């Protein structure tokens, strides 16, 4: 009997002792961090790939692991403390904060909100008022696309009831070319580029031309900022360098992105066009800096639109303190 008990007891003892025997991080060893991006591996994440390739994260003492997923999922993971960093949209941060998720926007990557409304040229849609009475396809009745469209409507005085909104998932190109919708809400650097390369003549209404909204950037949580502010600082600094390099040398960035996403080579022309379109949205006089006025306006608009469950405080959700000084 004693022998029978000995083995389980030893196992329990080993389990109890194990945590204290776990290897402690040695001084100078890189800090492991995970950055999740709200999409699939894509050329649009070139600044991250550039910073990794050039060792900017390593130079900051960070061992970066990349992860990909749906934006809403990764923001939830961030809020629950299961993830430390993510790339996400500012409008989603506002929504998440309104539901109590302690996420914080620490680095403004995109200078312009990337949502646009694309239509085939023959539809005659050239400006927002042309959308009245038309069938507009949208990925879903939530998310950055929906918020962008609602903001555009508000800024241009178009009542939502004057258009026929249709949730079409991510089938914008097929829906437009098959005449299922007259216009589609999409990302400026994705579907419009695909349509143009397919030989379609298109027109675009970029939401950012009519209204400023907080856009994609680096997110973390209040807990991470409190516990490891220096890690946030280092991550932002490394990314910043990657972004500046990408903006300065897109050819080099494209070649690096190909190493990280080999699938790019399957359709190089299209992917290059995607990067070029994205670079237009990233260029900024003050890279990384968030404009509190834009956030304030976005919060006010979202509250008016009935999108917020409760009031949100801008100061707690966005900060420029980790953005490298120029």
């Amino acid at each position: 009997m004693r022998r029978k008990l000995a083995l389980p007891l030893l196992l329990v003892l080993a389990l109890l002792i194990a945590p204290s025997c776990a290897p402690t991080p040695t001084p100078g060893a890189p800090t492991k961090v995970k950055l999740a991006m709200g999409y699939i591996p894509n050329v649009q994440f070139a600044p991250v790939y550039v910073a990794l390739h050039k060792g900017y994260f390593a130079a900051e003492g960070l061992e970066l692991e990349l992860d990909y997923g749906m934006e809403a999922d990764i923001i939830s993971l961030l809020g629950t403390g299961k993830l430390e960093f993510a790339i996400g949209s500012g409008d989603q941060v506002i929504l998440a904060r309104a539901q109590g998720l302690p996420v914080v926007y620490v680095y403004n990557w995109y200078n312009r909100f990337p949502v646009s409304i694309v239509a085939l040229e023959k539809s005659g849609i050239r400006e927002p008022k042309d959308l009245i009475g038309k069938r507009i396809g949208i990925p879903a009745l939530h998310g950055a696309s929906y918020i962008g469209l609602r903001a555009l409507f508000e800024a241009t005085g178009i009542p939502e009831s004057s258009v026929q909104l249709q949730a079409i998932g991510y089938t914008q190109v097929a829906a437009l070319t098959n005449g299922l919708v007259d216009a589609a809400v999409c990302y400026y650097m994705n579907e419009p580029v695909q349509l143009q390369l397919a030989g379609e003549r298109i027109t675009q209404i970029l939401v950012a031309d009519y209204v400023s909204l907080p856009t994609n950037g680096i997110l973390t949580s209040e807990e991470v900022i409190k516990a490891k502010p220096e890690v946030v600082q280092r991550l932002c600094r490394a990314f910043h360098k990657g972004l500046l390099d990408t903006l300065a040398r897109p050819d080099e960035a494209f070649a690096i992105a190909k190493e990280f996403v080999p699938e790019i080579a399957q359709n190089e022309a299209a992917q290059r066009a995607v990067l070029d379109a994205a670079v237009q949205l990233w260029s900024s006089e003050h890279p990384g800096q968030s404009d509190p006025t834009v956030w304030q306006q976005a919060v006010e608009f979202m509250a008016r639109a009935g999108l917020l469950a409760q009031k949100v405080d801008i100061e707690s959700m966005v900060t420029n303190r980790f953005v490298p000084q120029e």
Partner: protein
Amino acid sequence: MLPVRKARRAVQQLLSWCLALALLALAWQAALVLGRYPAYILPAPLEVLRKGVLLARQGVLLRHVLVTSAEILAGLALGASSAVVAGYLVSQCSWGERILTPFVVASQAVPTVAIAPLIVIWFGFGLLSKVVVCALIVFFPMLVSTMVGLRAVPPELAELMQVLRATRWQMLLKLQLPAALPVILGGLRLSVTLAVVGAIVGEFVGADRGLGFLVNLGKGTFDTALMFVALALLVVMALGLYGAALALERKLLHWRP
């Protein structure tokens, strides 16, 4: 069974369900208190109930429930009826099964969720595409159960019917269908729950109404309570459909011991 005894049993069944539900709510609340989970991770049962009542009062829930119900029932009708007909035709000729089976099995290897966006483009963004997704998911279990059921017909009875010079129609109605019915209805029980999954997959691709849309909306706006309300309704729908299939089985197979 006497009506009084039957009613008593129904009341006992109802009470046991209520008790199970109350225990679930208690365990849920206990997990919430012990784990100190915020509402965006795990909303309190009362919060979910409050949300559900609010949405029901506004008429929102009924609108979405009706849409998803229509998708499920139409998809189930289309998928199950075509599978039963196909299963009968295939079982009548041995070469038919040999030729068709690899294609049917191969079609099951393709996840419906992966081809759902294509189905939506082919059949439009309205009800039809969701019905087709639903029918596709239902088709395979119904086809297999029909084929298996028809194969289970006792050969000596078939021979007897042939000796009695029964027509093909008589063979089907008097022998094959009654003999295959237990297996076909077993397939139906499986299919009704799969039909719910099919409707949700269709709605996930692109929809502006339905319970799948509500789940997506809750996820997209970080409103976990809304997700729970929609998921709870889906569970209730699946249970209701399963119960209906079971009742149909009992009615049609009343002759079984």
